[in-house]
């Protein structure tokens, strides 16, 4: 009899998986409880999916600490020296001595805040007449993902508040802390909209492999690439990103027709750049349009035949 149950169960499962009507199994007293269970199993997730999503979340969380959540204004790095001086004499000095270029100057009731480029570095300057003769040991500007959280941590770690976090006129939410050793920290989260998704630069190489998983595997073995995410839909890798050193490479699978590689360019104004690129001699491939997934996207082919996707993320 056990033999027969094996077969009856398997037939029922076949019918269920073929999305057919397996309710007749419910009239078979021996089979019914197993059939009901089998029906539940159809809705159970695959262990491979569960493990893959877990691994993705683990990767994401490390990135969010290191890279992703921090919006850093263009030209800056995470930490920037912030010099406290009495007047503009310091700016004049570094302009003459080091060919400094002033990028921004924001007068406020209490001081003048300046942002200056020296070579490939940025420097911030605060000019106020009341700066004493004994300035702090050092002062730094730092971009963080969440200024309020970092501010609280800095206070808890023994810092003294010099100004609670609030939105500042230079496009940052910032709070100020003096550390226990007399250094000043200007802690900030950029408020300005950045069209470039976190973790990327303005231009990202974009490839269209026929078989993305094998290609990612190859990049991993050949160049030490680290997979950052992979979005699949019905077995096709729609969008994946790997990181090689400090650069990101993205791809979308083109199983049937292997497309040419190109560049993905993130900008604030897709339409303006598209027109400019076409006016400069590019061929239009796709006029600017809002995509289902939220980005606004246009595509052009440049003089070398390279495709540029011009996008503004949702």
């Amino acid at each position, binding site marked *: 009899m056990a033999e027969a149950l094996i077969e009856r169960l398997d037939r029922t499962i076949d019918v269920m998986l073929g999305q057919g009507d397996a309710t007749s199994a419910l009239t078979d007293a021996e089979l019914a409880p*197993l059939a009901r*269970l089998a029906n539940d199993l159809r*809705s159970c997730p695959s262990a491979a999916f569960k493990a893959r999503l877990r691994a993705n979340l683990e990767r*994401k*969380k490390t990135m969010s600490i290191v890279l992703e959540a921090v919006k850093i204004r263009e030209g800056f790095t995470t930490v920037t020296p912030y010099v406290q001086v009495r007047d503009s004499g310091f700016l004049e000095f570094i302009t003459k001595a080091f060919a400094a270029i002033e990028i921004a100057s924001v007068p406020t009731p209490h001081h003048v805040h300046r942002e200056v480029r020296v070579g490939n570095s940025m420097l911030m300057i605060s000019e106020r007449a009341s700066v004493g003769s004994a300035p702090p040991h050092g002062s730094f500007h730092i971009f963080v993902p969440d200024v309020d959280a970092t501010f609280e941590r800095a206070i808890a770690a023994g810092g003294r508040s010099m100004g609670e976090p609030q939105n500042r006129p230079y496009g940052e939410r910032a709070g100020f802390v003096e550390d226990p050793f007399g250094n000043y920290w200007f802690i900030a989260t950029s408020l300005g909209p950045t069209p470039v998704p976190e973790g990327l630069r303005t231009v990202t190489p974009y490839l269209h492999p026929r078989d993305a998983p094998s290609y990612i595997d190859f990049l991993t073995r050949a160049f030490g690439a680290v997979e950052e995410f992979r979005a699949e839909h019905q077995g096709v890798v729609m969008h994946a990103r790997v990181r090689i050193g400090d650069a990101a490479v993205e791809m979308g699978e083109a199983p049937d027709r292997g497309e040419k590689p190109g560049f993905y360019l993130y900008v604030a104004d897709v339409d303006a750049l598209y027109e400019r690129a076409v006016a400069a001699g590019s061929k239009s491939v796709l006029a600017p349009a809002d995509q289902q997934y939220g980005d606004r996207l246009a595509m052009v082919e440049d003089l070398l035949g390279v495709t540029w996707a011009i996008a503004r993320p949702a």
Partner: protein
Amino acid sequence: MVTIADDYDERTLIEAAQADPARFVDLYDRHFQRVYGYVIRRTGSRAEAEDITSAVFERALTNLRRFEWRGVPFVAWLYRIAANAIADRRKQTERDSPDPPPDMPDDRESEEIERRALIADLIERLPDTQRQVIEMRFAEEKSIREIAAALDRSEGAVKQLQLRALENLRKHMEGRHG
């Protein structure tokens, strides 16, 4: 069903993850089955359920700091994110999107989600070959012949493993309910 100890545990896990996102996987392990169960009941397709479940946990991780503990179970917050993700998906694919599904599962649905979460839990405790057969047969929708080839067993042996696995699950389910 939720006890004060569960409540306390959950709150501790959430606060740990808010302070250190590396701990988010603990919340994921705890709630994955329920979220997936909620989503697949509303989508029906495995591919879509996987896409949406991924989106739910990614959004939850991104927005975890905004979650405030007010005694409402964390899973309710996840269900709300899932309901929104499903509604977003419908808007993308259907012009006249129907009303969004209700946020919270009713008692009957909760019971079903819990039962399936329990089954998923029990599958992980099956003997290896039985677990593999169940995984391949139901999650990967492979035929008995394909599974037999993959495991290097006869088709009869695979059917036998399938039956044993289901009988095992049934026995354990009855044990839980009894």
